């Protein structure tokens, strides 16, 4: 595998313009290493996305950075404060949207925001003004006094976004902010995040397993797999790192036995996945591979039902760096869909 375009060089001293500085942070549970010596920095105003499948260690990493669990080793400075030695300074500087929807369902959005403003010690006068502004900002003014349980999933997520901003933090952590939302609500949350981020000059670190989310929202993407940081760069540069690769998605009717092995032997093919009748190939000689594939199918008397040629996606990037496709990990229901998420 070729060397990826990874920005792993971490400065020895935290520069003033670094919002998040993570150094060799590790978390083990017994013999299992959930996060394995990950290091990166996030600049003020930047949106960094942690992209990886379920179980990659993204949420564990975010929980360490938001003081919810202690690292086994390594360190992290958030707004200049150490997550282990000065957790309260970190907590005052950050707004967090956990993976689960954590608003109190019986309370209204206004009450949820008010309780959290009190927990952060926001003065009464400022509280009243700020809560009104935030509810307007997330377009929930009309629903401000209805119980949260009456709100849709997208609206509840917006309540959480407003709640996490109630003490005017500088750094925003979002753990899979759109998991479980329908496509329209997801787009709505993206638009809202972009707007709020620019209005409030926030630094954002979000985790996602949606490639389109990472692609559209993030300035840089960190690909995480098996607790390790695999690659870190802008979406454009990550895709450029695997440029020249063409993705072919071909449907046969039907595919003969050992067809996957035959496809693997075609000229220029880097990888083949699939079974049944649908196969996905990546190739560094797209046109030659396509011609060879059609010839092979004709020679073997295999009927090609459809063929599509795709540009490089983040899935290709993930495949390139990990040897597996991201979507293979996402077939099962996401843990967040369950009403009960057991915590360690």
């Amino acid at each position, binding site marked *: 595998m070729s060397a990826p375009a990874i920005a792993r060089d971490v400065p020895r001293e935290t520069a003033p313009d670094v919002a998040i500085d993570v150094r060799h942070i590790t978390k083990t549970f017994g013999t299992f290493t959930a996060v394995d010596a990950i290091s990166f920095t996030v600049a003020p105003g930047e949106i960094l996305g942690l992209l990886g499948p379920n179980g990659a260690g993204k949420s564990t990493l975010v929980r360490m950075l*938001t003081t919810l669990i202690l690292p086994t080793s390594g360190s992290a400075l958030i707004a200049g404060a150490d997550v282990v030695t000065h957790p309260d300074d970190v907590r005052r500087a950050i707004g967090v949207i956990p993976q689960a929807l954590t608003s109190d369902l019986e*309370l209204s959005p206004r009450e949820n925001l008010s309780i959290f403003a*009190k927990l952060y010690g926001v003065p009464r006068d400022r509280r009243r003004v700020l809560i009104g502004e935030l509810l307007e900002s997330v377009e929930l003014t009309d629903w401000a006094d209805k119980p949260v349980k009456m709100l849709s999933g997208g609206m509840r997520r917006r309540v959480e976004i407003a709640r996490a901003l109630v003490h005017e933090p500088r750094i925003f952590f979002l753990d899979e902010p759109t998991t479980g939302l329908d496509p329209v609500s997801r787009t709505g949350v993206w638009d809202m995040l972009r707007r709020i981020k620019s209005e409030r000059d926030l630094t954002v670190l979000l985790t996602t397993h949606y490639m389109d989310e990472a692609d559209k929202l993030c300035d840089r993407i960190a690909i995480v797999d098996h607790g390790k940081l695999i690659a870190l760069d802008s979406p454009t540069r990550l895709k450029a790192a695997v440029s020249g690769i063409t993705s072919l998605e071909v449907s046969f009717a039907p595919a003969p036995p050992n067809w996957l092995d035959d496809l693997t032997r075609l000229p220029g093919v880097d990888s083949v996945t699939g079974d049944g009748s649908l196969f996905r190939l990546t190739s560094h000689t797209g046109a030659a591979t396509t011609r060879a594939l059609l010839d092979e199918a004709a020679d073997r008397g295999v009927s090609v039902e459809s063929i599509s040629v795709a540009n490089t996606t983040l899935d290709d990037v993930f495949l390139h760096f990990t040897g597996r496709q991201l979507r293979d990990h996402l077939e099962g229901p996401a843990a967040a869909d369950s009403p009960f998420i057991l915590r360690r």
Partner: protein
Amino acid sequence: MHRIMAMVERDLRRFRRSPVLIVMSLILPLFQLVILGYAFGGTVKHLKVGVVDQDGGVPAVKLRELTVAIASNARTFETVSYSDPGQALTALRTGRLNGVLTIPPGFSRRVLAKDEPRVALIEDNTDNFVTGALAASVTGMVDAYNLHEPSTSGIPAAATLDVVEVYPYVPYIQYLLAGSILLSIFTMVMIGGGIIFIDDKARGLHEGYLVTPITKLELILGFNISGALKAILAGVVLMTVGSVIAGIPNPFDPARLLRLLLVVVMTSVALISMMFMLMARMSDPLVPRAMFGVLNTLLYFPSGAVYPTQAFPTWMRVLSKVDPFTYGVHALKSLLLKNTGFGAIAPDLLYLALFTAVTMTIATMLFRRTL
């Protein structure tokens, strides 16, 4: 302080919007008070007793007249006359009779000769409550019969006992009220405290406030104050409504209400501390639900709420000694049934305070501010 109050406000606002929780926490103890109070508090009546008179003499007739008098007045039992003892015993074995009173041949002769006359009561002893009631009634009847037989010396044949009761008669429903108040507090502590706490934890709600600057002590105090307030509310409702239902004399005596409130507060704080200690490291929402029944049995029944602790075997008396319910029940019974002063309940309050201190200390040591 403002963070503690924010936690309390959050919990009480949620509680106010959950009428089902409020009703369910109060309904179980109220139902238990009324159903158990009347089910166990009543006098056993309308038992069927076969009377076999194999004597037929005047003293035997007088004894039979006494059985008819009981059947007409106390109604503990109704009589059915049998001439054949075999038929009466068959009726007893087939469940048509609860007992057979046999007046043997020669009974009248022995009475007149003062030669230890005897009658026999053959009982269906599969139900101890029925057996006890029947034996007590027939024994009383025979004692009454003996009183009518003059002593030859003019001096009573045996010593008699006169019982003087200090307090008015206490129906069982009043006896049970103290336990029901404890049960209402415990139910609220379990449902409104333990189960909601673990459900919130399992749903990830705790993550929301663990990322705020709230301290461990503020969190613990917030949880416990709101839990105790809900439990006190449940206890006060049962204390007042239950007193009226059970017919406690002068239920709204202000001095007694204040002492009752003190016991309810101390018990609520003790039980919420115990609950918090048990839940501090728990995360599975099924566990508190499973624990509900177990704890209910372990705490409620050994406390003396439904039966005197003096009747318990040694191991159960030990359990009763450490059970906080025991002290709550004792204090509430003292106030509800005897309207005692503070001195009589002070040892109970002292134990509840010590229990709170121990469980709260352990809970604080077990509680983790991180996930």
